[in-house]
């Protein structure tokens, strides 16, 4: 073997820094959220697509891997 390991979590950057800009914070206090333009006519969530497209391939893979890790933890009843 020799290829196994779990280095991926250490090597992948975090998905977003969780900080809002000044403009974003201001908007949060003065505007109401809207669903207008959020969904395509066929029901596809465009906001989720844009969220993914704003990320690098590394971050996109990390998001997919985190989903698997969480699902696996639920299936096996263990923390990853």
């Amino acid at each position, binding site marked *: *073997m020799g*290829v196994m390991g779990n280095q991926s979590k250490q090597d992948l950057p975090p998905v977003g820094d969780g900080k809002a800009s000044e403009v974003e914070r201001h908007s949060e206090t003065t505007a109401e959220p809207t669903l207008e333009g959020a969904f395509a006519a066929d029901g596809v969530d465009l906001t989720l*697509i844009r969220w993914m*497209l704003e990320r690098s*391939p590394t971050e996109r*893979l990390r998001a997919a891997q985190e989903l698997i*890790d969480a699902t696996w933890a639920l299936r096996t009843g263990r923390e990853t």
Partner: protein
Amino acid sequence: MKPDFLELFRALDGAGVEHVVVGGVAAILEGAPIATLDLDIVYQPDHDNLQRLVSLLDELEAHYRDPAGREIQPTLERLETNEVNLLDTNLGPLDAMQRIGANWSWDDVVERSHVVRVSGLEVRVLDLASIIESKLIANRDKDRAMLPVLRRTLEEQ
């Protein structure tokens, strides 16, 4: 085993296996918000590359996901003969194929691919328009279900 895509990328890269990532993981790398459990690749079919792939698969303790539950290991001959090899490895499911879509060979797939950097690795992936085309050609329920998200992602790119 739990899929670990980055470790599979590292393993393929470390073994020098020429391949193109296709299917769900390729769609994710291209920006589509979908979920998948297996890594689909098309491998370069030259003898030397097949040998590198067989050695790696041995290292990863790969075996076919056999519906009858038999323990069948991938060999050079099987990888040469079978166009689709559904494998399980100690880094998760790996589907190794020679052709996809409209009978696209290695050269066709490479032509429709580009390189992205993933955690310091150069990973060659099928472009999103070709992923969509391959899903249209496959025309299975699961492929059709994914098409709206893939098409919208391509529009938003």
